[in-house]
């Protein structure tokens, strides 16, 4: 590792520092454009603070956006060596599990947790504000949310089945302290401290002093559990000794992390028992438990939480479609599209298939409603979804799924750019630089001049602008390769202008295709890119933050194992939950 670091440092000094000095610092230094001060960054190549910046540099230099046209241009060789050297800087990062802050349960996790704790419907949480993804947001808590937590706690106490109540608050002779202990162990997902039990007993005493009978006072105590930060947040059970910078997750945090990752709910009795015995962190045990959790139907949460977000299908239910053009997009159809992807994803996980199946599968899951989109209306599949073998090579896999084709379209028409960006970023894991500001969109082309052109021809016209051309050269061909699918994923041979669809193109880095089927084949053959992308996205989801320098070394290690074991989906999950950043936390900055 140390030798590797020295070598990378030398490459950096040779291929990056002079490049930056010659082509970049004129703008990106003391009065940094785009907030990018490269004069500082080149001095500390391994500093995690610059990881993201370097990734943006790679994207912009690769796309030819930087250095800008009017500036001196590096030779192709300089450019290539710069990009290769930057690709290595992760090896300069010190071993570090990354920042870690206690986290509040998401709305879905909170609902599921109440279900498993109190036997109530998870929909009881539906009034909580909806959440968007993103590190900062999920953690915050407003007074209104806390009001709602209190309201939902009241409701849950009313709706709790009698049997659950007897189990949790009984038996009638039981010592109140031991009941408090039991409730807190489940709800706090770790053994409570003596002080924490004291607080709950005091709440019981408060209830009794206010003339509540024993049962009502116990319910008040349970309400206190439900509004406690130890329930709403996942908190550590042991204090980290002062001065420690990095600590392993304690057994109970680990059990929660695993359970919320795969089930979006609290650990069950078996997982908690293993945490109590201190055995969960044994690698074989951790793997066995992961497979057990994956086999349970609660692992649907993995798709609802991760899969849907990865594929962009979490947007499908609320996405706007032009109701006159696409009256088909009813809630039932959208639900079927979502379920198609979910069943497909769950199959890849359950049957431990290769990651390339996501692209190259020759089957899908359909019902009568959805079969229409595939031109298979005669198949009479019934209303529930079932696995269907597909003979059309243009279909099958995520690139041919109506739901995904719909979320990557505009409300009224397809978007080659959106689909191109989606394939590059979500499937192949490349960074696409954002569009430069003040670029007129297609809609602003003079309607009379372009009315007779197909979308492809109009887009090519737009690309005659030099600023736009760099990126569109990469994005558009991929999107146009999928242009045979309309804005809600139905097959077509002509677009709205009446012109025939030309689905031919070339992938960046080579590979020609003439149909969606050939595009699928080319993408499926880029197995390493697919695997790296999924590994990065899944690791980020599992640890709840963006990846930093050292994480990319972890991803490299995961890829080695994936290659050895045939790029299997379960390998990806097992490698993630046994990885260094999943098992450890940085305690202070």
């Amino acid at each position: 590792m140390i030798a590797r670091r020295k070598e990378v440092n030398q490459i950096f000094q040779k291929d990056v520092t002079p490049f930056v000095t010659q082509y970049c610092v004129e703008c990106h230094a003391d009065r940094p454009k785009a907030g990018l001060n490269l004069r500082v960054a080149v001095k500390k190549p391994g500093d995690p603070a610059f990881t993201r910046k370097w990734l943006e540099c790679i994207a912009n230099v690769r796309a030819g956006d930087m250095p800008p046209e009017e500036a001196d241009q590096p030779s192709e060789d300089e450019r290539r060596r710069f990009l290769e050297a930057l690709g290595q800087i992760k090896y300069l990062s010190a071993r570090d599990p990354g920042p870690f802050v206690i986290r509040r349960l998401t709305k879905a996790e909170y609902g599921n947790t109440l279900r498993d704790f109190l036997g109530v419907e998870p929909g009881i949480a539906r009034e909580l504000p909806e959440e968007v993804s993103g590190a900062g947001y999920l953690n915050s808590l407003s007074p209104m949310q806390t009001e709602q937590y209190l309201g939902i706690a009241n409701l849950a106490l009313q709706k709790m089945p009698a049997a659950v109540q007897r189990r949790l608050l009984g038996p009638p002779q039981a010592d109140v302290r031991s009941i408090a202990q039991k409730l807190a162990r489940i709800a706090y997902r770790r053994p409570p401290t003596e002080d924490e039990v004291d607080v709950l007993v005091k709440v019981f005493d408060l209830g009794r002093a206010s003339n509540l009978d024993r049962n009502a006072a116990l319910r008040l105590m349970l309400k206190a559990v439900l509004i406690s930060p130890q329930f709403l947040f996942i908190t550590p059970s042991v204090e980290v000794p002062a001065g420690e910078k990095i600590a392993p997750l304690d057994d109970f945090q680990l059990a929660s992390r695993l359970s919320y990752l795969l089930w979006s709910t609290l650990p069950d009795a078996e997982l908690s028992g293993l945490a109590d015995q201190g055995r969960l962190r044994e690698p074989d045990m951790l793997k066995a438990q992961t497979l057990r959790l994956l086999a349970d139907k609660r692992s649907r949460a993995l798709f609802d939480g991760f899969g849907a977000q990865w594929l962009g299908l979490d947007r499908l239910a609320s996405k706007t479609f032009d109701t006159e053009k696409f009256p088909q997009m009813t809630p039932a159809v959208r639900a079927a599209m979502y379920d198609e992807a979910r069943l497909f994803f769950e199959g890849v996980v359950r049957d431990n298939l290769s990651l390339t199946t996501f692209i190259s599968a020759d089957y899908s899951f359909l019902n009568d409603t959805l079969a229409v989109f595939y031109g298979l209306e005669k198949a009479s599949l019934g209303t529930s979804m079932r696995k269907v073998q597909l003979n059309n090579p243009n279909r099958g896999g995520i690139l041919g799924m109506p739901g995904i084709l719909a979320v990557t379209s505009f409300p009224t028409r397809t978007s080659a750019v959106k689909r191109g960006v989606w394939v590059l970023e979500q499937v192949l894991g490349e960074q696409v630089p954002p569009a430069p500001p003040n670029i007129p969109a297609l809609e602003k082309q003079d309607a009379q001049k372009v009315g007779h052109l197909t979308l492809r021809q109009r887009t090519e016209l737009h690309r005659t602008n030099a600023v736009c051309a760099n990126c569109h050269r990469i994005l558009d061909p991929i999107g146009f390769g999928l242009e045979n699918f309309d804005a809600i994923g139905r097959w077509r041979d002509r677009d709205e202008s009446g012109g025939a669809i030309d689905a031919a193109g070339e992938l960046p880095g080579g590979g020609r295709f003439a149909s969606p089927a050939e595009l699928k084949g080319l993408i499926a053959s880029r197995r390493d890119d697919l695997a790296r992308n999924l590994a990065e996205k899944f690791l980020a989801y599992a640890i709840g933050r963006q990846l930093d320098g050292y994480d990319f070394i972890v991803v490299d290690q995961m890829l080695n194992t994936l290659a050895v074991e045939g790029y299997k989906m379960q390998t990806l999950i097992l490698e993630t939950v046994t990885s260094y950043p999943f098992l450890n936390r940085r305690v202070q900055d």
Partner: protein
Amino acid sequence: MSSSLISRRTCLRGISAALGLPLLDTMGWAEPVKSRQAYKPPVRLGFMYMPHGVIMDEFWPAAPDSFLKNPPAALESLRPMLSQCLLMKGISGVPIKPFGSAPHALELSTWLTATLPNAAKRSEIHIAISADQIFANYYGALTALPSLELATMPQTHKENQEGLNEGYYSHCSFRSPTQAMPAEINPRNVLNRLFGKTDAGGSAAAADPLDRSMLDLVIGGARDLRRRLPHGDQQKLDEYLDSVRSVERRIAAIEQRQKDAALEKAGIAPARRAGSDTPPIEIKIPEGDKRSEYMQVMCDLTVLAFQSDTTRVSTYIGSTPNGVSYPELGFSDTHHGPTHHNNQPDKVRKVAAITKFNIDQFAYMVKKMDSLHEGDGTLLDNCIMMWGSGLEDGNKHTRENLPFILAGRGGGALKTGRFINQVKGNQGDLLTTLLTCAGVPLDRPIGIATRTIREMMA
């Protein structure tokens, strides 16, 4: 149509001390009554938002001297109120470089912060405390709720612009630089939360004095937990503690209100209430999904919250940049589409109609405030209500002259009935001036501000 009548007058202050009721010291309610001098009602501050800018020709008045006689078309519904309105042209928004391709992600989140997100932490929420929350920090402890956040649509827009956290799209209110305030979209929850009604449905909690004592114990326990955690975690727990304390305070406020109502029933009049004050307005929660009715009930709730002094600052995100459509206007286009109108008449007409619709709802709210007596004048006299957008021209995403309307004199601090042309100032200057007029002594200007705008003051 179901209706919930809010029980009697609620804004009763000072009396508890005189009658030997328990002092609620954390609430600042027990200000000593000084003789019988006239009660000066507090200043309240309200914000209402519409995204995507306006049709400039229909929004900006032709000239200052014709403003009152010939208001622009978009302001037609405010015609009877113009003497209490103030328009200013020349207030620029925050320049959004280096986030050039994120005009819509930033129009709302910069609106009350006058600040850009931290570029290095763009995937998180990292911006600045917003003007309404600065107000709440100063006056929030005096009322049952520190602030009120309302919205029409769920705040879940998902679109990646410039790698910015998606929360920036749909939030205007920030409790701290890292904490976006979620807004309530269910009017029933607001009614419950403001007035402890349980018969209106929804999940907000009723007021239970026992809960307050229980929360006290929970907070004590949370403090123990806090001591065991590293610094970053402590901050998260502080947000929790802050929010639980505000729940406690709301419960206490409702208890107090019930006691006061009982006293009033017994014929003991509150000391600080003018005889002419209007009783609390009635809230009718609409059953259907008509946008205008829905927005009006949210406006009514704001009016009631101000009238009863339940809070003194509110934000209402009337719509968000996420494809809202307006079926009531007879077309199905979502808002954003026609704003890129390129001067095509049909699209211009639609954007004008959407803008007028939103201003109509604002007019509904300020007219209602104007109809309610308070002290020597009306509720509106003691409010500063601002309607506005984060872009001027949605077609080109410009923000040189942010469109906004001020209504109410803020207790005499603002000079209304005017259109001031060619003001030199920015969004930060405007917010700084508004807070100053509302009685918040600022220790530093807001966001990009460089001055207070004296021209708008009385």
